[in-house]
């Protein structure tokens, strides 16, 4: 992470934004709403209201408040889980302005044409975006795992007016990457009492009745596949795009485990996973990073365990809805640019997520915070989340270590399979068995 030494200072105060925007609007005279007079523009701008909708781990009121303050127009947020958001984009696209989508969900919904591409040149910091999104590789040029929906594969659109996702770079982006992370299993070290280092432990009879996985089919089956493969039962061609035979085999194994009472539950909501873990109902399960910290804040030991097989990666991005045009679209683009400019990156880093532009996030974090969250160094002082809750005591290190180490070890990505429909049916069978 030495390239992050070079700090990019970008001041997205309202004035600099207006200066830029008026320059831009002079260039793009086509948008009728922009007259070219900054004052008039600014007056109209303050009446703009943008509605940003997405899951609660990414769409956060405090961030929108800061953006509204910096940009001079109102940004409203509304939380909706990915499935609800997909339904809404499909059925009522006009009720969303900016959609906060996971990359795999983008793969699913893009071809309906409810979103519009963003020209790369509109995004000032595009070149600084972490290259797993823009190039499909790590900064050192190493390739990223392509199992599942690698964000890069969903990153580029063919162009305005096209509903196609383009494989390989173009001048247009589908959604602009914002937050991402590497997911793994959470464990209760105090109740397990020995080292855990493989996904196979999820299926270990030792923990019968004390395990749980995610009940959302698309992600649950991938956690199952990670464990099944680690145990050596199946060698998948691509865990993110299984064949019917692979789905059948996986579900059979899971059904068998279920019939023996191996799973305590399949959780479908964040807080269920927290409660399962905190109450000791389960000792090893799929978890999300903030859920692990939520357990920890109750004073209960919980580790987001690094596994030798690697992590399941995911990423979110922000997409502009197709109905945005004129001034409102300009405002939305400004919002996207603000998002990458650092404040948001610093904020979400404190709850364990990574920013699409790490180096701007760094400007909004203390050296100690940067060391803890991104570099895997022991904290010098207590580390707190954005709301002041204790995340790590002085001397502690982040689970899994440094950014490069965690993101560098992605085994597969959250995805939607070609056989999604078949998989959902099989998953329903599994649930009902």
């Amino acid at each position: 992470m030495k390239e992050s030494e070079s700090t990019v200072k970008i001041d997205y105060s309202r004035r600099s934004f207006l200066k830029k925007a008026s320059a831009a609007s002079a260039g793009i005279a086509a948008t009728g709403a922009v007259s070219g007079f900054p004052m008039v523009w600014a007056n109209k701008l303050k009446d703009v209201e943008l509605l940003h909708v997405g899951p609660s781990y990414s769409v956060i009121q405090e961030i929108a408040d800061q953006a509204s303050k910096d940009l001079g127009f109102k940004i409203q947020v509304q939380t909706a889980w990915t499935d609800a958001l997909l339904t809404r984009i499909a059925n009522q696209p006009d009720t969303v302005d900016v959609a906060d989508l996971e990359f795999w969900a983008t793969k699913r919904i893009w071809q309906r044409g409810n979103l519009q591409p963003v020209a790369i040149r509109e995004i000032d910091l595009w070149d600084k975006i972490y290259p797993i999104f823009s190039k499909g590789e790590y900064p050192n040029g190493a390739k990223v795992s392509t199992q599942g929906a690698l964000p890069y594969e969903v990153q580029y659109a063919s162009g305005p007016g096209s509903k196609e996702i383009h494989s390989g770079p173009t001048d247009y982006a589908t959604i602009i990457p914002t937050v991402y992370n590497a997911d793994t299993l959470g464990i209760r070290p105090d109740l397990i009492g020995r080292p855990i280092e493989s996904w196979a432990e999820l299926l270990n009879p030792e923990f019968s009745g004390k395990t749980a996985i995610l009940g959302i089919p698309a992600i649950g089956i991938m956690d199952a596949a990670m464990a099944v493969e680690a145990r050596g039962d199946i060698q998948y061609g691509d865990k993110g795009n299984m064949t019917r035979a692979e789905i059948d085999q996986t579900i059979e194994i899971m059904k068998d485990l279920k019939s023996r009472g191996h799973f305590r539950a399949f959780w479908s909501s964040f807080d269920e996973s927290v409660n399962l873990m905190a109450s000791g109902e389960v000792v090893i399960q799929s978890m999300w990073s903030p859920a692990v910290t939520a357990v920890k804040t109750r004073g209960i030991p919980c580790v987001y365990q690094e596994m030798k097989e690697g992590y399941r990666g995911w990423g979110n991005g922000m997409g502009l809805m197709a109905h945005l045009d004129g001034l409102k679209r300009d405002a939305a683009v400004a919002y996207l640019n603000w998002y990458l400019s650092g404040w948001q990156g610093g904020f979400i880093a404190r709850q364990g997520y990574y920013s699409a532009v790490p180096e701007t996030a760094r400007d909004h974090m203390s050296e100690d915070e940067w060391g803890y969250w991104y570099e895997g160094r022991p904290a010098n002082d207590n580390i707190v989340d954005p709301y002041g809750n204790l995340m790590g005591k002085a001397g502690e290190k982040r689970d899994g270590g440094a950014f490069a180490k965690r993101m560098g070890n992605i085994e597969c990505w959250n995805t939607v399979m070609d056989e999604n429909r078949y998989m959902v049916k099989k998953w329903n069978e599994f649930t009902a068995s």
Partner: protein
Amino acid sequence: MSGARRISGMRLERVLPYVQVMPLAAVLLLFLVVPLVFVGLLSFWEFDDIQYYPSFTLANYQELFASPLTWKLMADTITFTAVVWLLTVLIGFTCSYFLTFHIRTLRVQILLLLICTIPFWTSNVIRMISWIPFLGKQGVFNQGLIAVGVIDQPLEFLLYSDFAVIVCYVNLFTLFMIVPIFNSMVKIDLSIIEAARDAGANSWNILTNIIIPLSRSGIVLGTIFVVTLVMGDFFVVKIMSGSQSANVVSAMKNEIDQLYYPPAAASAMLLILIVVLMITLVLRIVDVRRELVQ
């Protein structure tokens, strides 16, 4: 009164009921019949991962009827319904019996009935999740049993199981049995019971030959409510079983969440068929309208 006025009055007499019932009928037509007909249409449409297309295909039904999952879900739904029905009828009947025949004063009767109904005014979601800290391994119930020494390991079947689902259903829905049964039981003329007793009938005879038959309308009405509520549920079965059980509607909800509307519509049609058959049968056996009016 003039003759003309009387004639117009009689005409009004004939037209009036239609005018009076029209708004209700219009709402039901617009928001029940038309949408369900549309669901019917949808079940014949084609779809892919992106959207659905007007068409006519039987594929959704072929898949539905060919899948063993359909019948498994149906069987599970019916099992849940039957068990919950039995429990709520027994509890509802017993409580109503107690209220009607053992509580003498009207004031106390109303008070106790009110106590039964108050939880109904709380959010069902809240009432549901309140069972989770209660039934868990570290929950109040398990810890209590351990404390008094009945068990030394927490009972795991209490939560995230079919047991938890049924407990929650009974907790949420028994009220829908108590109120109608109480309502019909209260109307039983006590002198009939006196007469039967004088004629030498024992308590059991009175229960089976007088009280149960005369509470029939309440039992039927309560049954309709409970069966409907259990069959239509999709979140209690999911949350309380820890997503380890499913019923027809919860599986349908999974499909809807994935934007697969046409196959969801096909299973909806099957469910509609079953519900309509069931209700027709119930209405054949009992004339609910007459029972209510009495």
